[in-house]
C-alpha cells in the first residue's frame, strides 16, 4: 500500500534497495528535495512516523543519509535520502509528523545535520557544556577521548503573567527512579505547561555498538533499558538475523515469546502497584511487588537470571526449558492468576482510588495519534497498535491476541490496559507451554555481508521497539539505531500534563512509566 502511494507520486524518483532486510520492509532512496514530499505521501496514506535517524555512510564512499521509517497497519516503509558532507542539511518533517521534532533535534545534536524548517533547534541529549562541534555519531569523532567542557546555557520555555511560577524538578528525583528534568509552569496548583529535559543518562550507546562485535552487541542491547532487557535483546537479535537472512528455529522463537510475556507480566505488576501507591493505596504496591518477586524467582530458577538478561542472542536463545520447568511455570501461573484476580476486584471496587485515576492525565486519541505514540500509551488512547498482531513472529501468528484498547486516555486507562495484558499474557504463556515445538534452540549465524541492513520491530512491555542495524564495508557494525517506545511516548506525557494539578504529576508520570535510559541511549 505504502509503496504504491510512493510510486504514484514520486515515480522513478524513488530507487528501491535490495540490501535492506527483511524484504517485507520496503526501503527506497529519494532525492533530498523530495524527502518532505515522500513524508507528505505517507501522511496522506494515514501512515505514522515510527522513527527517524541518520547514518554516517562516508566509509562506503558517500556522505550522510537520513532515514525515516513509517508504519501503516502491518506495513513498514523506510525512506532514505542522501545528505552530502559539504552541505549537511535535509528538509525537516516536523510540520507533517510531530515526533520528528525530537528525532530531528537528536540528529542535529549528535550527527550535526541541519533539518531545514525545524522550529526549535535547541540541542537535545547534547548538553550545553559540550563543544558545539562534538557530533559523536560521525565516524570522524574520537569516541574514547573525553570531551572538553565549555560554557553554555539551556533556554527554557517560560510562561508569563500574574501568579505564574516555575517548579524545576530533577534530575535527581525523590524516589528510586532514573534521572530527568521536568520544568513546570503553574498557576496555583494548576499546571500550565510542562517541559521535559532528558539526556542525563546518555551513555553513548549507539556509538558504543560501533566498537563491538555482533555477538557483544546483544549484551549491550540487553542493557539499553534494564527493565526491558528481554525485548531489546530479541529486537536486536531479530534485526541481525534479518540482515544475515538467518532463520531461527521455531523453538527458539517460542522461547523468546515466553521470556517476552514473562517480562511483560513482571513489569505490568510492578506498574499497577506503583500507580496505586502514588495515590496512597500502598496495599496494592506490596501485593503486586510480592507477585512480581515470585515471577523473578521462577526466572532465576529456570533461566538463570531474575530478568532473563542475555538469554536471547543473534541465532537463537541460550537456555531451554524442561518438562519440570513447564510444570513449575504452570503452577506459578495458577497462583498468580488467583491472587491477581482478587487484587483486580479490589482495584475495581475502591471508589477513592478511582476518583484519583479517572480523568487524570488525559492524552486524547487525537493527540496520541498525532504524536505517533506506541504501546500501552497508544492503546489507552484508542490506537490499536501491537507488533505481536501486526508484525508477528512465531508463535504470535498461531493464535488470536486480545489487545485491550481504551479511549479515555487517562491514568486509569493506562492501568487497565496493563491489567488486561497481564491476563492475556498468562493465557499466551499457557498456550506456549502446551504447544511448544521441539528442535534446536540456536543456529549458527552467517557473517553479515558488507553494506547490508536489517530491521526488526518487537512489542516489548512498553510498546514497539525498533532496531535498525547496518553492516559496514568489512561486515562490522557501521550503525545500530535503537528506537525505544519512550523516544516517542515522552512527548505524550508532556501533552497529557497541562490542566492537571501539580500533586497529580507523579501519578501521571507513573502511569506512562517511560524509560529514561532507553530514550537517552
Amino acid at each position, binding site marked *: 500500500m505504502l509503496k504504491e502511494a510512493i510510486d504514484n507520486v514520486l515515480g522513478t524518483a524513488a530507487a528501491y534497495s535490495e540490501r535492506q532486510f527483511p524484504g517485507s520492509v520496503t526501503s527506497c532512496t529519494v532525492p533530498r528535495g523530495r524527502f518532505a514530499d515522500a513524508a507528505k505521501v505517507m501522511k496522506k496514506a494515514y501512515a505514522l512516523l515510527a522513527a527517524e535517524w541518520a547514518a554516517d555512510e562516508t566509509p562506503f564512499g558517500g556522505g550522510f543519509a537520513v532515514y525515516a521509517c513509517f508504519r501503516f497497519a502491518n506495513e513498514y516503509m523506510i525512506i532514505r535520502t542522501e545528505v552530502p558532507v559539504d552541505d549537511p542539511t535535509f528538509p525537516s518533517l516536523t510540520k507533517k509528523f510531530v515526533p520528528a521534532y525530537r528525532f530531528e533535534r537528536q540528529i542535529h545534536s549528535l550527527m550535526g545535520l541541519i533539518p531545514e524548517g525545524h522550529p526549535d533547534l535547541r540541542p537535545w541529549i547534547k548538553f550545553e557544556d559540550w563543544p558545539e562541534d562534538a557530533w559523536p555519531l560521525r565516524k570522524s569523532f574520537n569516541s*574514547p577521548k573525553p570531551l572538553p567542557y565549555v560554557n553554555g546555557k539551556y533556554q527554557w520555555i517560560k510562561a508569563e503573567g500574574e501568579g505564574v511560577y516555575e517548579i524545576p524538578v530533577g534530575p535527581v528525583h525523590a524516589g528510586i527512579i532514573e534521572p530527568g528534568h521536568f520544568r513546570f509552569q503553574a498557576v496555583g496548583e494548576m499546571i500550565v505547561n510542562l517541559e521535559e529535559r532528558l539526556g542525563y543518562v546518555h551513555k553513548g550507546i549507539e556509538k*558504543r555498538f560501533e566498537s563491538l562485535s555482533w555477538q557483544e552487541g546483544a549484551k549491550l542491547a540487553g542493557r539499553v533499558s534494564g527493565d526491558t532487557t528481554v525485548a531489546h535483546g530479541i529486537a536486536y537479535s531479530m534485526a541481525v538475523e534479518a540482515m544475515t537472512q538467518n532463520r531461527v528455529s521455531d523453538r527458539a522463537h517460542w522461547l523468546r515469546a515466553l521470556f517476552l510475556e514473562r517480562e511483560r507480566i513482571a513489569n505490568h505488576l510492578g506498574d499497577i502497584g506503583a500507580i496505586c501507591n502514588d495515590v496512597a493505596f500502598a496495599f496494592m504496591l506490596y501485593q503486586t511487588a510480592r507477585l512480581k518477586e515470585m515471577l523473578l524467582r521462577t526466572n532465576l530458577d529456570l533461566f538463570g537470571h531474575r530478568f532473563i538478561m542475555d538469554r536471547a542472542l543473534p541465532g537463537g536463545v541460550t537456555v531451554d526449558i524442561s518438562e519440570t520447568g513447564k510444570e513449575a511455570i504452570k503452577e506459578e501461573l495458577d497462583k498468580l492468576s488467583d491472587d491477581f484476580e482478587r*487484587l483486580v476486584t479490589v482495584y475495581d471496587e475502591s471508589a477513592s482510588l478511582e476518583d484519583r485515576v479517572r480523568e487524570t492525565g488525559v492524552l486524547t486519541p487525537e493527540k496520541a495519534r498525532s504524536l505517533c505514540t506506541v504501546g500501552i500509551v497508544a492503546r489507552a488512547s484508542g490506537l490499536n497498535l501491537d507488533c505481536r498482531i501486526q508484525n508477528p513472529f512465531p508463535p504470535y501468528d498461531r493464535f488470536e491476541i486480545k489487545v485491550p484498547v481504551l479511549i479515555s486516555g487517562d491514568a486509569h486507562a493506562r492501568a487497565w490496559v496493563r491489567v488486561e495484558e497481564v491476563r492475556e499474557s498468562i493465557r499466551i504463556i499457557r498456550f506456549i507451554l502446551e504447544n511448544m515445538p521441539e528442535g534446536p534452540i540456536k543456529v549458527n549465524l552467517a557473517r553479515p555481508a558488507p553494506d547490508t541492513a536489517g530491521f526488526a520491530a518487537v512489542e516489548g512491555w512498553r510498546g514497539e521497539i525498533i532496531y535498525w542495524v547496518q553492516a559496514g564495508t568489512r561486515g562490522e557494525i557501521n550503525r545500530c539505531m535503537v528506537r525505544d517506545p519512550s523516544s516517542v511516548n515522552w512527548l505524550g506525557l508532556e501533552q497529557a500534563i497541562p490542566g492537571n494539578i501539580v500533586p497529580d504529576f507523579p501519578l501521571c508520570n507513573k502511569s506512562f512509566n517511560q524509560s529514561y535510559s532507553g530514550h537517552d541511549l
Partner: protein
Amino acid sequence: MIRILHQIFRTGIVTEPLPQAVEDEISVVGAKLEEAVKKYFRGSLTIREVDAGSCNGCELEIHAINNPVYNCERFGIQFTASPRFADMLLVTGPVSRNMAVALKRTYDSTPSPKLVVAVGDCGCNGGIFGESYASLGGVDTVIPVDVLIHGCPPPPAAILNGILRAIESKEE
C-alpha cells in the same frame, strides 16, 4: 474494604529470613553491627539512591529490597527523598557525563559520614559502557566510594550485604 482485609490475612507475612551468607554475617558481626548502627545512625540508616546513568536494572533490584519479601525496613533501613537527610548514597552507574555535576552536588549536599556504595558492575567500573565521551566509568571517578557491589544487576541479597559491609567499614 473487607476484600482488602481478607487479602492481607490470606497473604500473611511473606518476609523471609536473610539468605545464609547474609545471616552468617549477622551472627558473626551481629552485636557489633547493631551497636554500630545505634552508635552512628541511632538505629536508623537513611539512604538516598542516585541513578547516575544506569540502565534501570539496578533500580529494579533496589526496589526489590523494599518489597515485602526482603523488607529492608526491618533492619532500620529507609530510603529518603533528600540527600540532606541521608547517611548513605547508593549510586548506580556508569556515571554519565551529563549526570556528573548532579552526582557531585548530591554528594556535597549529604551530611557526614556520607557513606557511598556503588551498585552494579557499571557503578564499579563502567561495565559494558566503559569510558567514552558520554560515560565517565565507575562511580569512584567522580566521588569517593566506600564499598562496591558487583553484579548485573546484583540480586537484592547482595545489595543488602553491601549495605551491611559499608556500615562495617565505617565502624572500623
